[in-house]
């Protein structure tokens, strides 16, 4: 039975059913047990590599920094595997996950054994039997490339162009290369090049700090589901919405450690926060605009297949081609490969029963990921509505109309026919369980 607001006439939007669901506090994803099982299973499978992503992103931002030959940046030191997550473990700032603060046990087991068996980490790395940090870096670069978003609430980005940031970065660069006259000479010649690298490192840190929160959120959701705690997709979405507000004020910063000394390129005292400086830009850049996520198809800029305006970019996860070619360089493929190692048994069994079973598990997994990210996007949309607009049970019809217009505006992003967005978003497909 459709959940339509009693105070407004039914929406005439093409996706009126989805609008009504959002107005009733639901998700863009239909509330079915199968959808709930898929998205929670994927959150769990996503969270384990994400636990690696955030640790390695912080390691690169804080330790590898401007190393010109960073061949071993994906080989994470034990110190960062033992790094305590601020939202898990006994000493958490806010305990979201009831599990340990250090790296997830399944992640540690995978780092040690991989799929090929126990061998030195470097061999695992060379055999590509590892967590693919390329995906995480693609997300980071998407945020870097799509700057200026959510200004003025997002002050992090503007700060990167400030004199204060330049001065802080200058200190760190000079300290990092203090015994390296060649690099210092290059820095003298091309200071902006080094500064841009610093900005990229700041985004490494930004994304690492963002995912440090998301990993325990997803772990906890998986545990709650295993305990029978979620009754439907809206429950899962509301958990995310509540989580977003609970940790919205988490500081976003960039510290670099050089010879035991901490250089605060972006100090915590600047007051940049998780919601506005990390979460919103992340959703905008990664979910909607990430450059190469459309997959294997080549685009022809000369015939207008590539948007001229940045706001029209639409290559994000929500538009991702779920048919990977299985090669490195296509980030969704790499993410799917990462998630495949950590699928919960119920999800593996589910995939075996459909389509080509184990043979096309990567694609089935990709479709589930798309569903799960529509649910996360729904959580963000509801969170934005909560922050910027009105409650869903507001008695004022004009407020409800404003909410509706906000929801419709969000959905319109998926229904534009420009650049094939409409076909790529597959919002219609995810309304059906047969889309696998």
């Amino acid at each position, binding site marked *: 039975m459709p959940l339509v607001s009693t105070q407004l006439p039914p929406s005439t939007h093409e996706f009126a059913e989805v609008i009504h669901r959002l107005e009733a506090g639901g998700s863009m994803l239909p509330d079915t047990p199968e959808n709930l099982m898929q998205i929670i299973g994927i959150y769990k499978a996503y969270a384990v590599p994400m636990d690696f992503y955030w640790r390695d992103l912080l390691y690169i931002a804080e330790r590898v920094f401007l190393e010109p030959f960073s061949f071993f940046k994906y080989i994470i030191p034990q110190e960062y595997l033992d790094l305590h997550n601020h939202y898990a473990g006994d000493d958490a700032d806010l305990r979201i996950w009831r599990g340990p603060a250090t790296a997830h046990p399944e992640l540690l087991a995978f780092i040690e054994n991989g799929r090929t068996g126990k061998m030195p980490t470097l061999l695992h790395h060379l055999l590509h039997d590892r967590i693919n940090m390329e995906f995480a870096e693609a997300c980071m670069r998407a945020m870097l490339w799509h700057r200026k978003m959510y200004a003025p609430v997002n002050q992090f980005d503007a700060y990167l162009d400030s004199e204060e940031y330049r001065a802080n970065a200058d200190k760190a660069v000079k300290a990092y290369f203090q015994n390296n006259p060649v690099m210092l000479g290059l820095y003298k010649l091309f200071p902006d090049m080094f500064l841009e690298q610093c900005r990229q490192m700041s985004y490494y840190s930004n994304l690492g700090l963002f995912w440090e929160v998301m990993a325990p959120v997803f772990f906890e959701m998986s545990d709650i589901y295993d305990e029978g705690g979620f009754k439907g997709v809206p429950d899962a979405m509301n958990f995310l919405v509540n989580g977003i507000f609970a940790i919205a004020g988490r500081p976003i910063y960039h510290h670099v450690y050089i010879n035991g000394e901490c250089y605060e390129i972006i100090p915590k005292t600047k007051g940049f926060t998780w919601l506005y400086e990390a979460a919103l830009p992340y959703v905008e850049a990664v979910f909607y605009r990430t450059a190469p996520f459309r997959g*294997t198809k080549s685009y022809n800029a000369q015939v207008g297949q590539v948007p001229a305006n940045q706001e029209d970019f639409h290559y994000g996860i929500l538009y991702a081609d779920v*048919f990977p070619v299985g090669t490195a360089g296509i980030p969704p493929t790499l993410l799917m490969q990462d998630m495949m190692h950590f699928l919960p048994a119920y999800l593996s069994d589910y995939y075996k029963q459909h389509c*080509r079973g184990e*043979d*096309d598990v990567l694609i089935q997994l990709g479709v589930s990921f798309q569903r799960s990210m529509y649910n996360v996007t729904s959580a963000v949309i509801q969170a934005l509505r909560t922050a910027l607009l009105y409650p869903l049970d507001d008695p004022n019809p004009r407020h409800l109309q404003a909410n509706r217009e906000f929801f419709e505006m969000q959905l319109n992003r998926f229904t534009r026919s420009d650049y094939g967005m409409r076909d790529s978003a597959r919002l219609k497909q995810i309304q059906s369980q047969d889309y696998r």
Partner: protein
Amino acid sequence: MLSVLIWLPTIAAAMIGFLPKSISTSWIRFISLTVAGLALLWNLWILLKFNINYSGMQFEEYLPWNETLGLNYQLGVDGLSILMLILNSLLTWIAIYSSSRETQRPRLFYSLVLLVSGGVNGAFLAQNLLMFFLFYELELIPFYLLICIWGGEKRAYAGMKFLIYTAVSGALILAAFLGTVWLSGAHSFALNTISTANLAPGMQLLLLTGIIIGFGVKIPLIPLHTWLPDAYVEASAPVAILLGGVLAKLGTYGLLRFGMAMFPDAWSVVAPSLAVWGAVSAIYGAIVAIAQTDIKRMVAYSSIGHMGYILLAGAASTPLALVGAVAQMFSHGLILAILFHLVGIIEAKVGTRELGKLNGLMSPIRGLPIISALLVLSGMASAGIPGLTGFVAEFMVFQGSFSVFPIPTLLCVVASGLTAVYFVILLNNTCFGKLNNNLAYYPKVVWAEKIPALILASLIIFLGVQPHWLVRWSQTTTTAIVATISSPSIGDKNAISINPITTIHP
């Protein structure tokens, strides 16, 4: 020894037809496969024993049958037929292997396939005109039933058209055979007793025309080809493999054996016309193939084009051209078989053969990547890309024919180029591009479906890099046949055109 190739499948066909209904389709298929496998092994054993340095008939068998009619059971094999026997046995095995395990009326289906196989072997082995005709006609009804019962939507129409055309073909051939024997004064239908040298040139031309048109329907040559697209397209994949891979070769074999070899004088008169006819067929087949939107129909028209090369080579009648003709018959059989098999798989999995609907099958996970890769290989082989058997055969045909008929040969070279055009169209639409996310829920291709294609692909590559294994069997025989033909324009060029063979034959 040779009789086994005829009677093993034929007797097995009869036995399978009377198997009790309780035996499952899988078992019937397995029995048929075993029989076809044994016939293939027997054929390979004959191949091993075959003397490549002897140009005449080998392993001859003779049994008096109806001597008053001049009809005797007389078999033999030479360089012209040995490869055709292998091709028939191999493709019969492939066709049975590629048939569905859920084939309806399996006893009838596999009986007919084995009957066809035995009959085709009989036709290739027959050394008596009437016996050849009997085996030649034996194919007619089984193929008609195979098309009409297990065919596609318009199977009845296609089957009837096939029946009428090939019946007319048979009638013409019978008339030509009877005329040849009666008018030449021969006392028997035995091939080695017939000489047309004493016949008036006009009569020779008339009889040869009957043979050319009769076998031209079977090959087929334009404008006698209109049964082919319907029959090939409507037939199921295993039957299409036999139709294109084997039956068409009966036409070209008949033309060379009973046209060129039996009427050498008249042949040299009509050779220029035949060369032009071959070139026109090749060009026509290629151009019409380009215009097709159904991939099976495209493959069917490609067959018409490639058969034109054989006619050109036969018309040129140089040793190299004739070796090329035999090689082309064998290569074309392999390539057409793999193409029909692959198209059959694509149709079964995707549910369409329409170029406009097919896309992105090379996609590694949800597509048909191995099948697509093999389709690319087959397309390359058909287009005559070096390193594959199609190149070897076409190169010899062109090289051997150019000195005699340069313009028709150049036209055939152009047709060969056009082959690449329509295969690029086919491959570009079918294999490449973006797989439609909404439609791509195709069943996966199991190994059993890949094996026939892998066997054929291996042979296509092997014979492409080792052409010696393709040409050595027929070289002596074709050279001997050429020696009997007094081509008006060949003259001393025969000697020149022999050389390329020696470069292939280490």
